[in-house]
C-alpha cells in the first residue's frame, strides 16, 4: 500500500490539474481519547523530530503547557475537567491540525503553493511560499495555524509528511505509550475506531463515537470520543465548516470578481472580434464630420 506518495492534489491559489497516474491510499491518525493519559510524549516527540524548541512559559493554572499552540508547538495536550453525568472526568485531548479533506486554510490562502494537499490527505504548509497574510487562520475551522512573529510565516502540524513519505508513522504516534495514537489508512483507522467505540459503549459510554466531521469533507486526524454527542466538552466544534468569510471570498466574491475580470476581457475580446479595434479613419472622420444634409 503506497502511503508514501507525495503527489500534490491541491495547491493554494492554483488551478493547475493535479497528477493523476498514481493512486494513493488516504492516511489518518486516530486519537483515542479514552486511552490517553496525557503524558505529553507526543508533544516532546513532535519537538524532537521537527527540531522545534518552544519557550519555557509559565503555569497558568493547568497541566496544559504551553498554554496554547504556537509556531513552535504544533501539538498540545488540552486538559478538561468536566462532569457530564455528575461524575468527574478528566478529558485529555491532543490538539493539532486535523488535515481536513476540504482544508479551509488552503481554500483561503491567496499565495500560490503556500498550502498544499497531498494525495494521501496530508495538508502541508510550504513556508517559503507563505506571505504571512493570516488568511489560513481565518480559514481554519479548528483554530490551528499560528503566524510566527520571527519570520511572519504560518506554521502547524505536518502530520510528519516527511516521515510518512518514507513509510514511517508520525513522530507523535511512534512515541505514544498507550496506543491512544495510531496511524494507518483512513479506512483501517475507521475500522479500529469502530471497535473502540463498541468497547466504550460496553463500558457504559452510551454516546461514544468517532469525530470525523463531514462539514470539512472528513478529516485525516480523527478522534474516538467518550461523549461524541458533546464534542464541546473537548472544545471541538460540533459541526465545523469552512468560515463563511472564506466561502464568500472563495465561493462567491472571488469567483464573481474573477468572473467580472474575465468577463471584461471576454467582452473586450468579443468586441474586438465583432466590432474590431476602435480605429480612427481619417476619411470616415471626414465623412462623419460632414453634417447631415
Amino acid at each position, binding site marked *: 500500500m503506497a502511503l508514501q506518495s507525495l503527489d500534490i492534489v491541491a495547491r493554494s491559489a492554483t488551478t493547475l490539474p493535479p497528477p493523476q497516474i498514481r493512486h494513493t491510499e488516504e492516511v489518518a491518525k486516530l486519537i483515542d481519547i*479514552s*486511552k*490517553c*493519559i*496525557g*503524558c*505529553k*510524549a507526543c*508533544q*516532546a516527540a513532535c*519537538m*524532537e523530530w521537527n527540531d522545534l*524548541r*518552544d*519557550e*519555557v*512559559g*509559565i*503555569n*497558568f*493554572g*493547568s*497541566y496544559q*503547557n*504551553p498554554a496554547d499552540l504556537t509556531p513552535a*508547538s504544533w501539538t498540545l495536550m488540552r486538559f478538561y*475537567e468536566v*462532569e457530564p453525568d455528575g461524575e*468527574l*472526568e*478528566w*478529558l*485529555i485531548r491532543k490538539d493539532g491540525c486535523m488535515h481536513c479533506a476540504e482544508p479551509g486554510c488552503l481554500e483561503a490562502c491567496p499565495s500560490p503553493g503556500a498550502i498544499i494537499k497531498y494525495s494521501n490527505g496530508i495538508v502541508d504548509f510550504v513556508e517559503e511560499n507563505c506571505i504571512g497574510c493570516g488568511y489560513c487562520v481565518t480559514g481554519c475551522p479548528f483554530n490551528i495555524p499560528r503566524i510566527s512573529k520571527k519570520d511572519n510565516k504560518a506554521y502547524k502540524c505536518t502530520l510528519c509528511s516527511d516521515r510518512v513519505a518514507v513509510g514511517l508513522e508520525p513522530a507523535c504516534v511512534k512515541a505514544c*505509550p*498507550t*496506543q*491512544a495514537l495510531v496511524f494507518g489508512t483512513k479506512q483501517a483507522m475507521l475500522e479500529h475506531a469502530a471497535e*473502540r467505540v463498541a*468497547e466504550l459503549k*460496553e*463500558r457504559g459510554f452510551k454516546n461514544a463515537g468517532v469525530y470525523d466531521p463531514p462539514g470539512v469533507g472528513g478529516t485525516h486526524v480523527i478522534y474516538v470520543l467518550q461523549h461524541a454527542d458533546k464534542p464541546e466538552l473537548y472544545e471541538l466544534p460540533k459541526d465545523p465548516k469552512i468560515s463563511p468569510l472564506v466561502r464568500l471570498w472563495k465561493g462567491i466574491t472571488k469567483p464573481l470578481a474573477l468572473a467580472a475580470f474575465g468577463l471584461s476581457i471576454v467582452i473586450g475580446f468579443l468586441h474586438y472580434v465583432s466590432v474590431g479595434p476602435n480605429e480612427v479613419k481619417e476619411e470616415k472622420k471626414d465623412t462623419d464630420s460632414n453634417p447631415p444634409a
Partner: protein
Amino acid sequence: MTNNWIDIKNADVILVMGGNSAEAHPVGFKWVIEAKARNKAKLIVVDPRFNRTAAVADLYVPLRSGTDIAFLGGVINYLLTHDAIHHEYVKAYTNASFIVKEGFSFSEGLFSGYDSDKREYDRSTWEYELGPDGYVLTDETLQHPRCVFQLLKKHFSRYTPDVVCNITGTPKEKFLKACEIIASTAPPNRAMTSMYALGWTNHSVGTQNIRCMAIIQLLLGNIGVSGGGLNALRGHSNIQGLTDLGLLSNGMPGYLTLPAADEQTLDQYLAKRTLKPLRPNQLSYWSNYPKFFVSLMKAVYGPAATKENDWCYRWLPKLDRVDHEYDILRVQDLMAQGKMNGYICQGFNPLQASPNKAKTLAGLSKLKYLVVIDPLATETSAFFENHGEYNPVNPAEIQTEVFRLPSICFAEDEGSLVNSSRWLQWHYRGQDPPGEARTDIQIIAALFLKIRELYQKEGGTFPDPILNLHWPYLVPSEPTPAEIARELNGYALADIKDPQDPNKILVKAGKQLDGFAQLRDDGTTACGCWIYCGCWTEKGNQMARRDTYDPANRGLVPGWAWSWPANRRIQYNRASCDPEGKPWDPKRKVIWWDEKKGMWTGIDVPDYVPTMPPSKGMGPFIMLPEGVGRLFSRGYVKDGPFPEHYEPFESPIGTNPLHPKVVTNPVARLFSEDHKELGDSSKFPYVGTTYRLTELFHYWSKHCLINATLQPQQFVEISERLAKEKGISNGDEVIVTSARGRIRAVAVVTKRLKPLVVNGKVIEHVGIPIHWGFKGLTHKGFPANVLTPCVGDAVTQTPETKAFLVNIERA
C-alpha cells in the same frame, strides 16, 4: 514485582493504589490499557487525587492521604464477612491454619510486648506455637481461636465500612463498590493485580500498607498466578538493581544482611539466617544462606577468604544495633549534629530528595568536605550558592569543601539496568561522554586505588579489608561492566562436582556458573550476587538476549533479557496450580505437574523443586521456612504481625478513631530534634501530599529544555472549595507553609481534589509536586521537601512525605 510489566495485560481487575502509574510509569502503563482493551479488565484507582491514572479508570475512589491501612483493612473485613476468599488456596498456601503462641494480643492500638521507653516491641509472642517435633501446630479446620485465620478475622472485624469511611473520608458507596470489584477476583478463574509505588512506602506505616495488600492478595489467591501479584513499580530505571545489590546501609548483595554487633562469630551470624523448615517437607531455601554468603566473600576477598579465617567474616562491619541502620534520616541527623566529616554523594541529590530541606542544608554546611558524583550540576553540589529565597544561604559562612566529579549518563556506557520486572537488560554505549566525565566505575576505581596506595605506603589502623580486596580486573583503573557482570554471576574456583555423583563434574574450574544451585559453601565458588547467578554463563551474556518469542501469548518472553531469579518471570508460580499440581485456571496456565515425566513443566521456570511431586505437600513459598504465605508476619515486621491503622505523625484530626490513646505508629522512627518540628492542625489545617509528574523525572530532566517547556513552573493543587475559602483564583501565586518552612508556587485550582469528611471534620488536601529547584532550565522553585517532616517508617525508615500538615495563603 512478583509478576512483570507485560503480565498486567492478563489481569481482570487492576488496582492502582499507593501509586499513579499512568503519571509515573507511562510506558509500562500500556499494559493496563491493553488489559482494558483486550481483557475487559476493570481499573480501580484509590488516591487522594483524581490523577492521570484516574483519567482512564473505571472507578475512582478518593481517600485521605495516610489512611490506606484503614481502607485495605476494610477490604479484608469485607472479603472475610462476605466469604469472598479463595478457600482452597488460603488453606493450602497461607499460614491461616497455623497456631500462634499464647500471650499474643492486641488491644488499644498496641500489640503484646510494647516497651514505651524504647519505643519498640519485644516480639517474642508474635510467633507460632511449636509441637514437640519442632514444627508449628496447625488446625486445618481453621477454628482454633489462636489460629492465624481466627486472629485475622478478629483483628480486622473492627474495620467495618462505617469505621473505615469515617477515617478515610471515602464515600461509603464508592468504598463498597471497590470492595465488590476486588472481591470478584476470589474465584480461581479471575485475577487482580496490585500496582503500587511510593504512595505506599512514603508513610510512617509504609511497610504495613504493603503487608495489607499482601494479605488481600493471599486471601484472593492472586499471588503466583498470571495477571495477579503484588507489583512494586520502581521509580528509577535501575532502583531495582540498587536494592538487589544491597546498596542500603544494612544490606549486602542478593538480600543478604550485614551482621549486628552481637554476632561476633560467623556461626552466630549464619545460625540466625540459615532458616530450618517450620513444617514437614518444606524447602526453606534460605537454608542455603551459607552457600550464598561464602561465595560472596570469595568474590569480594578472593584468595584472602579462607575457611580458616571464616571467609574474612571479621572484616565485615557490624551494625551496633540491629535497627541502627545508617539510612538517609540517620545520616542527615548525624550530619546536622556535626558528627560527620565527609559525605560522598553518588547519583543522589539529598538537598532536594531528603525531607526537611533546612535540616539537610544545615548538615551539609557542617561537613568538612562533600564529594558529588553526578552527570549534572545538582542543587546538592551547589548548596553553598545563594539563590535568593530559593536557597537563602550566606556562602561566606559555609566552610565545606565541595568536589564535583562529573560522571556519565547511563546512555554513555554499556551495562545492565534492572527494571521493575526483575529483568536485567544489557544496553550499549549510545554516545561518548562529554568533557571530563568518567564512568562511575572509573571514578570509584580511581578512589579505591588511591586509598589502597595510601594504606600500602602509610599503613593504618585497619588496612586488611582494603589491602586484600579482590581486584582481578584486566586494567585495574578501568574495570569493565562485562567483568563486573561476570563476577556478579559467579564462577567456579575448583571443579564443581554433582553431589549425587562425585564422578560427574558440573562446572570446570574457572568457568562461569549456570545458576545458584551450583553455589558451594566450601570456598569453591565465587559469586557477587547469588540471585544474579545465571545472567552471564558460559553461553554468554544472557542479559543481552532479544528474542521476543512469547509462548501461549502470556507475556513471559523467556528469551528477552534475563530475569532474576533463574530467568523466572512469575514468582511463586507453583501457587498458580492447585495442591495436585493442576492449574487453578486452565486459561492462565503457567506451570503444571507432568505426571508422566515426573516433573514440573510449563511456559515459565517453575518456582519449585523441578522433580518434587505434589503429593509430598511442599508449599509454594519455598523461600519461607513455613512454605506458605504469611497472613501473620510473625516478628519480621517491627510494627506488628498484622497491619493496623495509625494516623500520620501530623494528623489533621489529631486522634485515632480506632484507639485514641495510640494515635500514631508507636515504633516509627522520630529523632528528638525532629519531634520539635512537627506541626498540628490548629496552625496547619490541610493535608500536604507530595508527588511526581510525567513531564519531569525527579530533579534531573528539568535540565532538558523540552521537559522544562512541558512543565515550566512550580505549582500546587487545591480544590475549588478551598480556593474559594482562601480567596485564591486559578493561577494565583500562593505561599504554602509547614512547621518546617515555606514555598511559593502557582495555584492550580481543580475539580480533581475534593474535600473529604473525616471524623466529622472537612479535610482538604494540598497537592505538592516535587520537581523544581534552583538549578536547571525551568523557572526556579522550591523542593517540596522544604515542607516535609523527618519521620521514618518503622521498618524501612522511609520518610513520611505523602501525609503531613500545611497551611496555604494567597501570596
